[in-house]
């Protein structure tokens, strides 16, 4: 019964939203890439790079939002590399994605060792603090859960809205979606398929890096290895689960995070203490796989996902 009670506490939902925030950024980023027809398996490494870049910037003296911007730019740089290889050159998106993850991760660790050669435990920064929104934060349950978060979380929710509007209400979004459905149709209308796809991957990678930065700048206040720990791969599952729609992906991320928050709390109950903690830690990954199996039958994959476009191919 104590489990049911947990579900009705604001602190539980506040934790769920906090856990969901980095996933929302990265899922949105992956969603943009895939909507334009490019699978970005660089996500895991780009999150690592973003986590380090944002934190390092703030540690070196910039303010928090500048740190976020720097993280985003680092992500965009890796996005540029990824898109250059996969879009105009049409190389395997699987191989390039894994390569980018490896490159981003290893160069991050290299940079960390160079920047902080002597430290044994990584230094802390002054991370984002919760900002209670007047009036709204006083709504019972919802106020504590949604409106007492850090500004970085609010940004995640705003971005869901922005991405939805851009994708479905603007000519740019229309062209981007069409590039993922039938690039030949886009080219026939005189639009640059290569540019659209590269742009999507670069922007998407920027968002992934912001997701990583959330970990070091809002969820925690310091950087350590293995911090991202498969979150990128989970986001890829969330994109599928969310049927490539920003709103549904947001719901998926929050639902997923709620399960995660719940398992943390169940671990601390008397019942949870009897179960090996590894079982709880497995849950997010198992849930992701189950989610994929559930939606696989009715998945509406962008028709040209992973299909390279070579203008004038004969």
């Amino acid at each position: 019964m104590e489990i049911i009670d947990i579900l009705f506490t604001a602190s539980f939902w506040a934790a769920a939203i906090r856990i969901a925030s980095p996933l929302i950024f990265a899922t949105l980023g992956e969603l943009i890439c895939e909507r334009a027809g490019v699978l970005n398996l660089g996500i895991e490494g780009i999150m690592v790079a973003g986590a380090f870049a944002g934190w390092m910037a703030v540690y070196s003296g910039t303010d928090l939002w500048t740190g976020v911007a720097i993280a985003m730019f680092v992500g965009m740089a890796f996005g540029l590399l990824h898109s250059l290889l996969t879009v105009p050159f049409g190389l395997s998106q699987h191989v390039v994605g894994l390569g980018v993850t490896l490159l981003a991760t290893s160069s991050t660790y290299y940079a960390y060792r160079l920047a902080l050669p002597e430290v044994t435990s990584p230094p802390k920064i002054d991370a984002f603090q919760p900002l209670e929104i007047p009036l709204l934060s006083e709504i019972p349950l919802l106020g504590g859960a949604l409106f007492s978060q850090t500004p970085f979380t609010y940004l995640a929710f705003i971005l869901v809205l922005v991405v939805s509007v851009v994708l479905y209400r603007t000519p740019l979004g229309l062209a981007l979606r069409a590039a993922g459905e039938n690039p030949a149709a886009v080219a026939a209308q005189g639009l640059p398929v290569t540019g659209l796809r590269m742009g999507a991957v670069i922007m998407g990678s920027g968002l992934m890096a912001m997701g990583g930065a959330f970990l070091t700048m809002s969820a925690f206040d310091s950087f350590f290895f293995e911090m991202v720990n498969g979150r990128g791969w989970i986001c890829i599952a969330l994109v599928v689960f969310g049927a490539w729609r920003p709103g549904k992906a947001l719901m998926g991320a929050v639902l997923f995070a709620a399960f995660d928050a719940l398992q943390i709390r169940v671990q601390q109950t008397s019942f949870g203490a009897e179960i090996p903690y590894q079982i709880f830690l497995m849950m997010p990954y198992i849930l992701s796989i189950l989610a994929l199996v559930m939606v696989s039958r009715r998945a509406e994959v962008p028709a040209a996902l992973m299909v390279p476009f070579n203008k004038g191919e004969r």
Partner: protein
Amino acid sequence: MRLEAITQPSLLRKMVPPILALITTVIFASFLAMIAGANPLSVLGLILKGAFGSQFAILETLNRATPLIFTGLAAAVAFRAKFWNIGAEAQLYAGALITVVLGTGVLPWPSFTILPTLALVSILAGAVLLLAPALLKTRFGVDEVVTTLLFNFIFLLFISMLLEGPLKDPMGMGWPKSARLIAEARLPRLVDGLRLHWGFALAVLSAIGIWVIQTRSTLGYEMRAVGLNKEAAAFAGISVNTVLVKTALLSGGLAALAGFSEVAGLKGSLTLDLSPGFGYTGIIVAMLALLNPLGVIIAALFVAGIFVGADSMSRAADVPTYLADIMLATALLLMVLAIMLTRFRVVRD
């Protein structure tokens, strides 16, 4: 710009891009070494020396290459059929797990049967572990990239649970570590007195075996056909799903042999740091080898050399050892680009 297929690439066209890719990788690594305040030439020299500069170094490289040959083959076999098994890490641990479960004295059979049994059971364990993602793909259409990746995390937690629970060595002074293998379950050394075990020979033989299968057998033909064009393969009468499942079983089995060979040949017991990412590195090995099983041997030696060399360089020159990973990632990305450029020319249009 646009890409145009080259009908008959010249020798120059086939050689120049890959060589340029390697040179660029080395230049990039030198640049990073300079950022770290070291002399790039001496860093490269130290890596070479650390990898191949002495008998000890060479043996160390061969030992490090052994699991990489297995995981490289696992990736090469699977990728050939476009089955994206990114879960070699988990399958490696599956092989290691079954080896320590059965290799610590529970098998009542004559001693000469122990090692072959352990090897076969390891193959089976890895194959079974990959069967789940394979069936999820063929039955439900679930993308195997994500499932095999996520399985790595799940399976490592599972190993951790076992090592802190039923498999924990009571003599292990509290460390999460399994009991040691009995002597009959250890792979002997290839040559007395030299620190290189039979796992390496097994790896090389496996590579040759896979090469024969790929070039001479109908299964190899089917795997290539499915990888290049599923639709045409199915039209011609190849059962795509059956081929994918067979591929998965073979790939998982090969990856598991890496775990068997590491435990039985080198470590003697199972710990959570048995593999520093051999499963993932196998993907690089396979790609650098252009998915050719014999090439995997060479690529694995190259990759192992860089790791072993970077370790010793790092101790001597104070450059972080992650330089090795960066070099490999760069080599991987540049090499796939280079291979494409051997077959297509970029045309401005």
